[in-house]
């Protein structure tokens, strides 16, 4: 809502030219002897009346760098855009997409959707889509079924959608009554929701909340396809799956390895800070990539490498550090000290060292195609600029994006990057760490809010058994204790951690954290999770309004629709999977199979081709809300202008859908079906065993955000600030982003100056340009993750902080103590005083947030008695009730005042040194554990590397033998069948015990589709361990058996036409375009730069195939064939690979094109990419697959500029 008339002084401060009269140069005088040159008004050349404009600030809607952007508008027309000079991230700069943003507004873009529409003609039928195996065939089907739309009112659209969904739910008999309680299985809900990473945090939170309350975990978003493997690899190893540094901080890096990212194109403004280090001469930029991209043009060291050989390359860095370097890094004192700081066991390191030993420079060169000398130079540069080799004075860092993540072993690669940094002491310092740059403006936020099928907002586990609910009820009855005060009942078994009170391990801490968060959801959502009666957790009836289990992901849902017959409908908001999904023809089949598809978007997208209902959404600039950038900073977007016509922001659409869903009986909570309308909040007397009733809570679902506070009618009905407050309360990770003392949204904070030394984290803020008063950063406004030692080690100083006795809501470990602070602490508002106080003491650890102690553990509810979401959110009011037990078991119930609590919603947690040092990094992490009985007397046992290496050669040899006789695909099917598991082989001593590699450390795995057979046998792909991947080579349903023919694992399996060359293919994004192209192809400013689809072909290959620049080429494989322009270039390589060092070519395709909108083609690149999924997250392997390439006839090419192409609307029907 903040808006200013243009502040002329601000506008001027950019240059400081002012209006000082200018003296004339000699030449000018001469020329101007007759005339004074004309004086121009600001904007006169372009006919823009900038002086009359008002400015509105926001965050760029493209990538996740989080650049500040200012729009100038006159009335409802936006006339200009500039970068925000106050924003420390971009300092007034923008990339071409940010600059072109102006064309996203309805006034500039006639293509924007303006009214809800329902389809009036038939959709492309599954049977016809199923037969498509070429661009021509796809075009024929889709043109035959081109959508025709009828404009309708929002009311009609909502009624239609709810009626159809109700029919589907009735058909499947959707009901929460299970044999052992009242709850839903989240994977059985027949409607898939896909909600894009362009949503604000508030929208993301609401859509996940809505899905959960409908009983569904069939909800996911594009983060699945972009950084899911980053989150899994990092969180599973060091605590959180996010960038540890900030973009600004990259200037302090000493060696920056760009490996799987291309920031100059995908995150251009980030390069502003990185190049500052290079300019100063303190930063060495190393780019290792299959393409010489625009980032490579800035590299000090560049190497081409084969896509899919990432693990081998990173393993060589460790090989160098452990086996080539003298002395080896593990003999350094700094190494030992650092390992201790992360509680890494030295035995674990020894096992991993054995793996690294095998990856010599020569071997890795054969896998990656990087010459030995260059490999060594890179490893040396990286290792010698690392924390452990420089006494924590210099640091190396790794940047990546989709190049690293989009592999079927993506989680292993991101995890290996983390292990490299853990080994070399680079993590947890400014100038060092891990930099997964995220792609969408708010993909970090939508991931944090968990529009994901397997976790709740803030990365919270979803319940999966009634036992968990029973243990949770018992935990509640113990007074919502922290891990240290929790006594896990004996009947719970050992799965939740040590039963004894006071005894703590990571499992117990995590469960208490999850329980704590379930409680937050119960309170803020107005739902019930527990047993009835509450006093009998062991035998009472289990009721859970949070559904059980995990749902389908964006990459597996097509199997849910086609193979499992579960998914019958879908709602897709702000996403375009018809272009972005891998192996897109399978996506088209799934979309075509749906009884109902609702698409909410800015345009008629490719996905809308399959839709029944098309709803007009709003672009980020037309919304109010918070946006989290890639380095975890929250910033606020103000509405620049309302969306065009009758288009609406997603928050409004979601809440309306909810209203209609409620009205039509689509949402029926288990607690409602059971009739649980009150919760007795009981606390068990620790001495006497009886229950003390703390208060009674009304159970009534809360989704009421119509505050009337906004002048805009849509936002008056859907107040994003209320949702923002709810997120602060409900989502632990984001707690602290609202200032309950000053009633301020900290995402709106815009203080561009640095802190003074005496403020919290002031020294770090000044030294490393942290800008801690610009926006807010999770967790607890910490800017550099895991930053425990920067003060003590790098800057060689410390700070002390005193907790005056009795003042703060902290336990005896801190109360009245003076503590030494060694790193970044972050800050929180104290519950008792409302003061800012340091959060994490002494610095902070990698498990921060998850590990905490509670000042009032066992005495009260999580918000000291928050009972009613209405009163909590609207009035910021809680009913504070504490129970105080004495030693005899006598008790009294006291109020807030008596406890000295003034701000009960603020923080009552504390993090003392014990908490900080309890956590352990998972240097070793088996992804498979225990045994699996095959039922024929044989047992599969998941084993570590010492065992696995005894049988791995035999496994490879058997695979090679089978593959040579019947092909790799058949060999895999046979071998997995024979041993009951993939990557498994009988133990040498006991053939009935089958050893299966437990994946505890990353080793090299070849891509699912590999150009070199020998490597495929020696380092087989891991894909086939996951059922959904095995389904690809062995489809489980008769109707889809021939899908197996679309797989080509080796060049031999590919049906390539005469004269074609089989090559390794990779895909990329360009700076001029964005993802599926809808946000850029529809913008003339960007389409001017790169209008047509193309493939980058190495010059020698083009010469061999007779392909000239601009020729039309056919790119295909068993899945599909498409036609693109040829870009002939030396920027893609020819590499020597494999034991014979044979030469192979790599081609690259940007994937921004589809058939909808301007600059269209049916040659969708992802129709030839593969959908082999990550063994952990189901990430697709789009960064390496096999294609053939050949010259094609120009008439095959169907690209058209299509500037005038707008939706076909049938009026008056």
């Amino acid at each position, binding site marked *: 809502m903040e808006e200013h008339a243009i502040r002329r002084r601000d506008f001027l401060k950019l*240059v400081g030219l002012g209006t000082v009269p200018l003296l004339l140069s000699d*030449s000018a005088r001469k020329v101007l002897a007759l005339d004074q040159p004309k004086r121009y008004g600001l904007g006169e050349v372009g006919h823009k009346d900038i002086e009359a404009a008002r400015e509105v600030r926001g965050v760029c809607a493209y990538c996740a760098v989080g650049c500040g952007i200012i729009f100038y508008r006159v009335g409802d027309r936006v006339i200009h855009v500039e970068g925000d000079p106050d924003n420390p991230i971009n300092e007034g700069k*923008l*990339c*071409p997409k940010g*600059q*072109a943003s102006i064309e996203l507004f309805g006034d500039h873009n006639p293509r924007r959707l303006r009214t809800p529409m329902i389809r009036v003609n038939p959709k492309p039928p599954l049977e016809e889509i199923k037969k498509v195996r070429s661009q021509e065939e796809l075009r024929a089907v889709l043109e035959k079924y081109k959508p025709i739309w009828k404009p309708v009112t929002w009311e009609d659209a909502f009624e239609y959608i709810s009626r159809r969904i109700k029919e589907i739910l009735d058909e499947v008999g959707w009901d929460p009554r299970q044999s052992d309680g009242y709850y839903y299985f989240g994977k059985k809900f027949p409607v898939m929701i896909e909600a894009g990473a362009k949503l604000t945090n508030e929208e993301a939170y609401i859509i996940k909340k809505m899905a959960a309350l409908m009983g569904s975990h069939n909800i996911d978003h594009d983060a699945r396809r972009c950084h899911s493997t980053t989150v899994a690899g990092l969180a599973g190893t060091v605590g959180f799956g996010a960038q540890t540094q900030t973009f600004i901080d990259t200037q302090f890096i000493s060696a920056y390895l760009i490996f799987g990212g291309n920031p100059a194109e995908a995150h*251009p403004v980030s390069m502003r800070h990185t190049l500052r280090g290079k300019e100063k001469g303190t930063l060495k930029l190393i780019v290792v990539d299959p393409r010489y991209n*625009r980032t490579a043009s800035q590299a000090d060291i560049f190497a081409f490498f084969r896509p899919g050989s990432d693990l081998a390359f990173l393993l060589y860095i460790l090989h160098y550090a452990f086996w080539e370097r003298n002395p080896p890094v593990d003999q350094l004192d700094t190494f030992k000290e650092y390992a201790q700081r992360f509680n890494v066991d030295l035995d674990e390191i020894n096992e991993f060292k054995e793996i690294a030993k095998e990856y010599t420079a020569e071997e890795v060169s054969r896998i990656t195609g990087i010459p030995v000398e260059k490999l060594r130079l890179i490893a040396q540069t990286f290792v010698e600029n690392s924390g452990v080799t420089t006494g924590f004075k210099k640091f190396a860092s790794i940047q990546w994006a989709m190049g690293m993540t989009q592999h079927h072993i993506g989680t292993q690669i991101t995890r290996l990057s983390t292990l490299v940094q853990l080994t070399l002491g680079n993590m947890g310092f400014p100038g060092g760490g891990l930099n997964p740059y995220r792609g969408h403006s708010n993909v970090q936020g939508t991931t944090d809010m968990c529009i994901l099928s397997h976790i709740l907002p803030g990365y919270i586990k979803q319940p999966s058994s009634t036992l968990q609910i029973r243990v949770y009820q018992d935990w509640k009855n113990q007074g919502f204790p922290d891990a240290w005060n929790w006594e896990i009942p004996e009947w719970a078994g050992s799965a939740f951690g040590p039963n004894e009170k006071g005894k703590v391990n990571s499992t117990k801490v995590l469960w208490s954290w999850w329980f704590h968060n379930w409680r937050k959801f119960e309170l803020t959502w107005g739902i019930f999770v527990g047993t009835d009666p509450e006093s009998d957790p062991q035998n009472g009836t289990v009721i859970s309004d949070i559904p059980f289990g995990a749902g389908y992901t964006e990459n597996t849902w097509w199997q849910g629709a086609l193979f499992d017959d579960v998914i019958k409908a879908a709602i897709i908001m702000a996403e375009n999977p018809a272009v972005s999904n891998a192996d897109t023809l399978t996506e088209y089949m799934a979309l075509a199979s749906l009884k109902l598809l609702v698409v909410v978007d800015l345009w008629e997208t490719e996905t809308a081709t399959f839709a029944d209902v098309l709803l007009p959404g709003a672009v980020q600039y037309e919304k109010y809300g918070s946006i989290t950038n890639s380095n975890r900073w929250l910033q606020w977007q103000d509405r620049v202008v309302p969306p065009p016509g009758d288009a609406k922001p997603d928050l409004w659409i979601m809440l309306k859908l909810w209203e209609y869903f409620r009205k039509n009986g689509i949402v029926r909570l288990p607690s409602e079906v059971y009739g649980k309308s009150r919760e007795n909040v009981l606390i068990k007397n620790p001495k006497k065993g009886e229950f003390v009733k703390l208060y009674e809570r009304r159970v009534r679902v809360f989704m009421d955000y119509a505050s009337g506070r906004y002048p805009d009618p849509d936002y008056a009905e859907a107040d994003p600030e209320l949702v923002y407050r709810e997120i602060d309360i409900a989502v632990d990770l984001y707690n602290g982003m609202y200032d309950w003392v000053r009633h301020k949204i900290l995402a709106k904070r815009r203080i561009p100056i640095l802190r003074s030394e005496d403020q919290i984290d002031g020294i770090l803020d000044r030294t490393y340009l942290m800008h801690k008063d610009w926006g807010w950063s999770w967790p607890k406004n910490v800017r550099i993750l895991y930053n425990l030692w920067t003060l003590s080690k790098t800057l060689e100083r410390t700070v002390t902080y005193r907790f005056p006795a009795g003042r703060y809501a902290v336990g005896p470990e801190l109360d009245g103590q003076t503590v030494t602070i060694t790193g970044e602490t972050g800050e929180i508002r104290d519950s008792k005083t409302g003061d800012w106080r340091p959060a994490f003491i002494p610095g902070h650890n990698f498990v921060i947030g998850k590990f905490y102690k509670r000042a009032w553990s066992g005495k009260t509810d999580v918000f000291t008695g928050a009972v009613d979401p209405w009163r909590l959110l609207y009035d910021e009011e809680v009913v504070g009730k504490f129970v105080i037990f004495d030693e005899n078991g006598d008790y009294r119930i006291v109020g807030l005042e008596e406890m000295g609590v003034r701000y009960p919603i603020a923080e009552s947690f504390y993090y003392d040194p014990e908490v900080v040092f309890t956590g352990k990094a998972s240097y070793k992490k088996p992804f498979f554990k225990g045994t699996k009985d095959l039922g024929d007397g044989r047992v599969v046992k998941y084993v570590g590397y010492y065992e696995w290496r005894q049988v791995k050669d035999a496994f490879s040899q058997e695979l090679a033998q089978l593959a040579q006789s019947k092909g790799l695909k058949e060999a895999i099917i046979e071998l997995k069948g024979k041993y009951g598991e993939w990557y498994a082989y009988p133990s040498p001593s006991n053939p009935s015990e089958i050893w299966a590699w437990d994946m505890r450390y990353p080793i090299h795995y070849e891509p699912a589709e590999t150009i070199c057979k020998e490597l495929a046998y020696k380092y087989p792909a891991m894909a086939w361990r996951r059922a959904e991947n095995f389904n690809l080579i062995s489809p489980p349903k008769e109707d889809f058996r021939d899908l197996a023919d679309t797989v080509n694992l080796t060049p031999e399996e590919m049906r390539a036409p005469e004269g074609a060359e089989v090559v390794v293919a990779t895909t990329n994004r360009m700076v001029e375009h964005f993802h599926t192209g809808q946000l850029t192809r529809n913008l003339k400013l960007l389409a001017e730069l790169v*209008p047509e689809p193309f493939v980058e072909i190495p010059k020698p290959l083009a010469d061999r195939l007779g392909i000239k620049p601009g020729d039309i080429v056919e790119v295909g494989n068993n899945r599909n064939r498409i036609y693109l322009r040829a870009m002939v270039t030396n920027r893609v390589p020819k590499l020597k690979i494999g034991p014979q060092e044979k030469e192979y070519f790599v081609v690259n395709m940007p994937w921004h094109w589809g058939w909808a909108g301007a600059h269209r083609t049916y040659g969708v690149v992802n129709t030839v990419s593969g959908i082999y999924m990550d063994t952990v997250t189901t990430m697709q392997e789009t960064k390496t697959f096999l294609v053939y390439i050949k010259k094609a006839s120009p008439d095959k090419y169907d690209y058209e500029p299509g500037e005038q192409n707008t939706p076909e609307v049938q009026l008056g029907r």
Partner: protein
Amino acid sequence: MAAGEKAILFTPDSCIGCRACQVACHVWNNTRPEVTDFSPTLTNPPDLLPNAWMILKYKEVGEGDSFDWLFFKRQCMHCSNAPCAEACPAGAIEVHPEGAVVIRQDKCIGCRYCVEACPYDVPRYDPITNKVYKCTMCIDRLQNGLEPACVSACPTDALVFGDYEELVSKYRAAGYEVYGDSVNDYVGRTHYVYATKRWSGKLTDPSYFGDHLSKDPRKTIVSFTKSVVKPIGWTLTGLTVIGLLGHLALWRSKRMEEVKKGGE
């Protein structure tokens, strides 16, 4: 040198080829983006247009370890001697004290003498409006205290703007090779300045940047004295194109003679 003289300095060393400058130029000046075709080099549109006042050129050089991918910004150089201004019979091209050379659209008569005179092949004639267009150095920003739009956009400071002498001497002192502050007698100095450390010696090498940055930029039609032609030009505004062309032919032969004389 007079105070107030400005320069835009481009260094390919820091350019990441993102083309924020190209889009910013369109947005500020409200010039229509061109509907282009596939470009085998990425450069698009392939050359300057009446509605494309700047482009970023891409060029691949060498192979293997000596491979280089060059990014190069191309637009009006804003010469101090401004041959275009001197050639303009209508007095439509003004040289501003900041160094900006600007075509006044209200005065341009579409005669294209400036096109003939420009050694960098910059001004572009639009037959629909019968006017010539080119980069204005964002004169309407400069005069109102703002940096040019392309500079303001550039994420990596490959484009910087400032006081001419200060900027040039700063980069020279930092070891950069600079093109522009003293080119030749035909253009004088340019207010678009190019600087590099990385490609030292290659700025005017035709296989690198030299196809744009000529060592000795010059056209056979040389400088055109305003004092002589301007009054004639004014009387010509209402005359026919044929008359104009006749004048051009006359003027050209006269100047050629002068050049010959001057050369002796």
